[in-house]
């Protein structure tokens, strides 16, 4: 148990340098812009006084170290700065946008797991036709870009069948049914590719466990296939599946950048894309910071779950 605790502590400590490096990268975004970022942000009609004012407000007239310390200190106090287009506080903007991104990625991952894991188990243990069909699904899911799949889904469900809205958003608190109706197509779009990856991993992990001697032994003891799969094979395949789910959260967050833009969902991803097009650097920084932080936290949780499922990981070994 103490080894487990040691692992948890070490893993928690590792998060600190990750967050630090990420914060430096995000901090540098605005400083690495070729030319004068303040001029780029304000456009060429801005007066010198405007430029000087914004430069001072963003702290760009100080030394790089002072700038970083000031910026990171403000972040830790919850002061994320202001959007330079709407002048709204970014903390408030983020608070409005994050729930949308959480809902989109959370529901997509849930659907992908609910489809991918059972199909993966079936693919590893089923007959020839099951294997062929699941393989076709994997190739489809991996090869079809999510944004094109989204367009085709809109064409079918909003264009031809007219049973779902093509794009838009209402908050869940205002209209739960309407909210879910808007979420169906984006979630289906994001979940399909993810389900394919999870299916492939589950198939591989369960398949290799099924070849191990202890499974043959369980079979010889007369234990039923169902119990072997769910009681033993899946339990042993768990760590690999959870690891891939953790990695895929990153892919989902990246995909959300496209899908939110496509379905006009007011999430963090869309905030970043609009920010880039408007040269609204403080907003871009905060958006990227939020997405990267979510990913780092999810990686941490994933590693802890894997260590709990397979205590050998905490000993430095593991599957």
């Amino acid at each position, binding site marked *: 148990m103490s080894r487990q605790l040691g692992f948890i502590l070490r893993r928690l400590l590792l998060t600190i340098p*990750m967050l630090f*490096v*990420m914060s430096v*990268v*995000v901090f*540098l*975004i605005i400083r*690495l*812009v*070729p030319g004068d970022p303040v001029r780029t942000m304000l456009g060429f009609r801005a007066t010198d006084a405007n430029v000087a004012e914004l430069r001072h407000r963003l702290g760009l007239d100080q030394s790089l170290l002072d700038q970083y310390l000031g910026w990171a200190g403000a972040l830790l106090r919850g002061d994320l700065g202001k959007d330079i287009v709407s002048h709204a506080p970014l903390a408030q903007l983020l608070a409005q946008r994050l729930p949308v991104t959480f809902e989109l990625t959370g529901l997509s991952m849930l659907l992908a797991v609910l489809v991918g894991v059972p199909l993966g188990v079936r*693919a*590893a243990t089923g007959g*020839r036709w099951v*294997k*062929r069909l699941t*393989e076709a699904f*994997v*190739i489809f899911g*991996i*090869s*079809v*870009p*999510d*944004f*094109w799949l989204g*367009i*085709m889904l*809109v*064409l079918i469900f*909003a*264009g031809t069948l007219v049973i779902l809205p*093509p794009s838009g958003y209402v908050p869940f608190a205002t209209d739960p049914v309407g909210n879910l109706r808007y979420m169906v197509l984006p979630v289906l779009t994001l979940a399909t590719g993810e389900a394919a990856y999870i299916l*492939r991993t589950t*198939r*591989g992990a*369960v*398949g*290799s466990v099924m070849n191990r001697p202890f499974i043959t032994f369980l079979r010889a003891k007369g234990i039923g296939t169902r119990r072997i799969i769910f009681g033993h094979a899946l339990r042993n395949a768990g760590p690999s599946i959870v690891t891939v789910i953790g990695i895929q959260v*990153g*892919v989902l*967050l*990246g*995909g959300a*950048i*496209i899908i939110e*833009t*496509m379905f006009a969902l007011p999430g963090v991803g869309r905030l*970043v*894309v609009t*920010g*880039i*097009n408007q040269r609204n*650097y403080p907003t*871009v920084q905060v958006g*990227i910071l939020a*997405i*990267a932080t979510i*990913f*780092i936290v999810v990686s941490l949780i994933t590693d802890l779950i894997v260590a709990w499922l397979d205590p050998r990981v905490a000993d430095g070994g593991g599957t």
Partner: protein
Amino acid sequence: MTSTANPPAKSLEVGAPRRAPSRFILLGSLILAFLALVAIAAPLIAPHDPESVDVHRVLGAPDLQHPFGSDVLGRDVASRIIYGLRASLLVSVSAVLASLILAVPLGLLAGYFGRWVDSTISRTLDLILVFPAMLLAVTFIAILGPGSVIAALAIAVIYLPILARVMRTSTLIVARNDYVAGSRARGASHLRVLVTHVAPNAFGPVIVQASVLSAFALQLEAGLSFLGLGTQPPTPSLGGMLADGREVLIQAPWVEIFPGLVIVIAVLGFTFLGEGLRRIFDPRGVGE
């Protein structure tokens, strides 16, 4: 001369139906050769000028003159796809090549010399792997501004750690062979050993990985252009075409269906080629 006992072939697709590698390679190469030919011969085979606007043909349905119809500005969709394919392939393939050029020497050095050389190279590259690919690409573009060259550069940086890691693992395995030690014992320099013995034998898995990554690069490029962050208009790109047609999807689905289908076919080409090559050059699954 090479390693004596190869471990049993380990397919990454455990439990998947097994097919001969040659069929995958054949299918993948045929698709890619066809698409490459179309992209290279674009000026010769495109039926119309991809950028010429025709007010009488706005959202025209497919017919004999315009097999894939025309778009919001009356431009011929087929011609735009042919040129767009050119841009998309150019960006994704050159990105992966640029990544390879850096990754191969880095991976070789890390795997061959080990110790601090390895830890310096590996730890530095690991920093890139911490972030999701799309987020990295967007961050890169946030700094340097949108455009196809920047998009290619971003994709190259994203895949650098993946390719370097595969090259490193592969080098580690090859460097353990007796013929490498033998060559050193006969007085060959490190450079000579690396170039004549290690590199040629360690190259297989990284080529496989490069083919697989090209499929992802193509999707990433299309995604970035779709967001308006990759190839810039008026230059046609497959992702950009999908973005342009979004508003008229229901009235004129051909504007969206055909460019997307071409992306899917190209991605399938790289995926098949990569899978076929994997079964020949990377039976140990180093690239996984």
